[in-house]
């Protein structure tokens, strides 16, 4: 569920990076100020900022590449992402570019405005003025040095050392030094006794002094003041000696000169750095621009991804729903409209899902109900048929198939006429239904007798219209039952009652009749002449025989009405058939037996089953008595599917008419001249007492086949 959810984006890293870069940019900007403490790390800041810009550029390029890949793959949301990014880029680049352009122009103009030819001239003039002012002073100092040098003429080196200190006290010189032509110090004296090493001229000054016999120059002193260095050749000395006098420029003049010098130098440096300043400021500004644009582009990508993520999720969710996945739940923590949209989507899928679940439950309930009804209907002994308004068969059950002995399951969606055409034996049945259902009767009942498969069946039909939930007529239902066994049992009961009464009413006078006839013969035999004796004997014999016959008939009735108590035991049907077949082997031309070796033993009354078999064999024997080539075939086999033993006794005798087949098992349904007509009725009764069935089927071209289905009963 919800494989992809909107990731909670952490902005700490990008914001941290941006803040760091902005901080670095600020420091860089601050460092460009002359008095900034960040001067020393200016170059490092530039490198950091360039690396940051490269990093942002890399991010931008990778994001553009990602977007291009999404675009070429036509991924969901790539177009809107591109639009948002372009919009952001345009919004950020155009104003930033404008600001950058005008800032740059302003910066350049401002820097240029700092410098002016007049200022240049003024600065130069002030410097020249300072030099001139100092020149006047240095010239007077030069004269003073010459005077000092003149006092040292013709002096030896030893005298120079002695008189130099005295001379310094007479002048303003802070230091006097006498040195040789090679620059070797001969003698020196300093106002500050702590200074041991004199301020010696460099080689170029020395060569100038030697060349021009004197030298004068202004120099900055170590302690930020100015000094005047004068060198004069001491005449009439051998070897050549030079006197150097160092004068300190008065502090006020020195400060003024230094101030002018510093200002000029600063201005000169500033002027020299003009291009560099422009470059540095432009660089800083450019980095700020690049940062802004790149950061805006990056932010655009982040924003676009953030914006598109729920949309992409929604599209994927919609696709999932379209493909039938109603369990799709999108996760979001957003509180905005997109979050509302996603929550609405989730609510929608939840409703669809619950509706589907309810529908599925309802369908399952309906299927369960249907299965329940199917089970009930299939196990009902009653037949149930359902029809629509056009009397097309919609439902049927196993009971209907069994009662009508036709597989109506194959006739679903058939109209009653089509069923009649397919099964002509059901013509009367279907005609009745058409009449009844067409008569618009609300409910109807009907007892219907018809023949099927040579059997007469009595059906009790009950028809009812079927109403839908909106009370509209939607079809018809027919429930019917085969009441033939009930009628048969009622008839049997009636016959049993009759037989019992007959046995009771007739059997009682038979013995006195027989005894009276025998007494008449015995008493009158001596009194009558021969003719009369013959007549008497014949009559009394007839009476006795008929009484015996009636007794036999009454016994049959008695047996039918009140059969002896059954004594079941485990018997082998095959053995029983074989034993009985042996009895008739000599009496029947062709008696064939085919008994399955695997016949199971069953619980049954052997005496009564023997009576059944003998009755049927005798019946077959009588059927083939008048024909040539008559034969009786007895077979027995085990039917595993119904776990029953099927016994068939078939003959090729004259058989039974179709009209008689339907009632052959009823008492007094015999076609024979002799017999009580109870034989097959008793056979049927015994088989039914054992839980079995017996039917008769005609054999083509002639003959009849009694088929017994005897269930196997195990102890």
């Amino acid at each position: 569920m919800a494989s992809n959810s909107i990731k909670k984006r952490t902005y700490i890293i990008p914001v941290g990076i941006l803040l760091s870069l902005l901080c670095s940019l600020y420091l860089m900007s601050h460092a460009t100020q002359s008095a900034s403490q960040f001067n020393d790390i200016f170059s490092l800041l530039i490198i950091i900022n360039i690396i940051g810009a490269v990093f942002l550029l890399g991010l931008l390029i990778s994001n553009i590449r990602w977007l291009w890949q999404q675009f070429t793959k036509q991924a969901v949301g790539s177009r809107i992402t591109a639009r948002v990014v372009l919009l952001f880029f345009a919004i950020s680049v155009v104003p930033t570019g404008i600001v950058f352009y005008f800032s740059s122009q302003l910066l350049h103009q401002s820097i240029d405005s700092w410098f002016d030819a007049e200022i240049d001239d003024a600065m130069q003039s002030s410097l020249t003025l300072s030099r001139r002012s100092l020149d006047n002073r240095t010239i007077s100092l030069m004269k003073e040095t010459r005077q000092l040098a003149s006092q040292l003429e013709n002096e030896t080196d030893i005298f120079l050392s002695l008189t130099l200190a005295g001379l310094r006290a007479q002048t303003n010189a802070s230091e006097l030094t006498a040195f040789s032509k090679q620059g070797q110090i001969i003698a020196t004296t300093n106002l500050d006794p702590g200074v041991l090493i004199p301020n010696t001229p460099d080689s170029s000054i020395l060569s100038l002094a030697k060349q021009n016999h004197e030298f004068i120059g202004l120099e900055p002193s170590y302690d930020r003041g100015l000094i005047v260095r004068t060198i004069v050749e001491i005449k009439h000395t051998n070897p050549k000696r030079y006197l150097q006098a160092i004068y300190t420029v008065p502090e006020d003049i020195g400060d003024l000169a230094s101030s002018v010098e510093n200002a000029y130098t600063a201005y000169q440096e500033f002027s020299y750095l003009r291009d560099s300043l422009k470059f540095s400021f432009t660089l800083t500004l450019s980095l700020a621009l690049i940062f802004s644009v790149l950061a805006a582009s990056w932010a655009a990508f982040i924003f676009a991804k953030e914006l598109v993520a729920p949309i992409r999720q929604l599209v994927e969710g919609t696709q999932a729903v379209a493909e039938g996945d109603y369990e799709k739940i999108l996760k979001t923590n957003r509180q905005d409209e997109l979050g509302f949209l996603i929550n609405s989507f989730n609510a929608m899928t939840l409703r669809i899902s619950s509706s589907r679940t309810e529908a599925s439950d309802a369908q399952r309930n309906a299927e369960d109900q249907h299965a329940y009804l199917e089970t009930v209907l299939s196990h009902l002994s009653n037949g149930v048929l359902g029809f629509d308004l056009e009397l097309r068969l919609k439902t049927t059950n196993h009971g209907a198939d069994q009662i009508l002995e036709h597989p109506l399951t194959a006739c679903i969606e058939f109209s009653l006429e089509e069923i009649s055409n397919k099964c002509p034996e059901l013509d009367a049945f279907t005609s009745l239904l058409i009449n009844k259902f067409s008569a618009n009767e609300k409910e109807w009942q009907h007892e219907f007798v018809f023949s099927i498969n040579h059997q007469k069946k009595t059906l009790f039909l009950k028809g009812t219209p079927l109403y839908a939930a909106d009370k509209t007529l939607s079809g018809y239902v027919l429930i019917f039952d085969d009441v033939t066994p009930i009628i048969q049992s009622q008839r049997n009961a009636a016959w049993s009652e009759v037989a019992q009464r007959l046995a009771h009413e007739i059997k009682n006078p038979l013995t006195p009749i027989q005894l009276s006839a025998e007494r008449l013969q015995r008493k009158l035999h001596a009194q009558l002449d021969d003719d009369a004796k013959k007549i008497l004997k014949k009559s009394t014999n007839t009476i006795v025989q008929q009484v015996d016959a009636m007794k036999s008939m009454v016994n049959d009735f008695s047996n039918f009405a009140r059969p002896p108590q059954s004594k079941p035991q485990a018997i082998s049907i095959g053995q029983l058939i074989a034993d009985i077949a042996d009895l008739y082997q000599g009496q029947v031309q062709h008696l064939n037996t085919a008994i399955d070796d695997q016949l199971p033993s069953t619980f049954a009354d052997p005496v009564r089953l023997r009576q059944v078999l003998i009755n049927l064999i005798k019946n077959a024997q009588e059927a083939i008595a008048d024909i040539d080539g008559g034969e009786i075939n007895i077979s027995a086999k085990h039917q595993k599917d119904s776990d029953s033993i099927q016994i068939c006794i078939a003959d090729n005798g004259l058989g039974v008419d179709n009209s008689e087949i339907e009632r052959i098992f009823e008492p007094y349904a015999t076609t024979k001249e002799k017999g009580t007509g109870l034989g097959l009725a008793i056979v049927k009764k015994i088989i039914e007492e054992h839980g079995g069935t017996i039917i008769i089927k005609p054999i083509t071209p002639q003959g009849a086949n009694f088929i017994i289905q005897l269930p196997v009963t195990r102890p």
Partner: protein
Amino acid sequence: MLLRCCFNTRQLLATLVLLLASASCFAAEDQHITIRSASLSLQDKTYLLNAHIDYSLSDEAIKALHNGVTLTFNVDLSIIESRSWLWNKHLNNLSLPYQIKYHTLAETYQVSDTTNNLQHNFSSLSAALHALGTINDTPIHAITNDGASTVNGSLKAYLNIEALPLPMRPLAYITAGWYLRSDTFQWPLTQ
């Protein structure tokens, strides 16, 4: 993500290669600073540095100098212990900054040894540069003898761009005229 990293790394490497290539191009230019000789001598438990360095300024440097820009040259001294199997160990690293500036009013060149607070004025640039490159018995107190057997002295001199005025630095880093640097001069130190 990995691709991005590779991409960024490639970019960075390309930039570095370009920088190195430009640096090597600068180095291939005329050598402006050459160390002629250098030695360290121990005197009263203090090492004294003597070196002779030829400085020759580029046009850019001379122009800047005459426009009031102070140039700072660093002389980096290192005591290195040579090791056969490992990289050399720097026992001591010391940087001696020297400055040269032009005094407009006096029209002299000032050479300053900021370490020892010494300052000299010269009327010509060549004399100033000569003085700049002459290191005579400069005491190096930071170096101590730790008894390492095979040690070398290493000296190199270069213009310190970071000491230039701030606006000049970005361009100085990418301008050949500002790449004033000597080769490293090494000599064995005797204990």
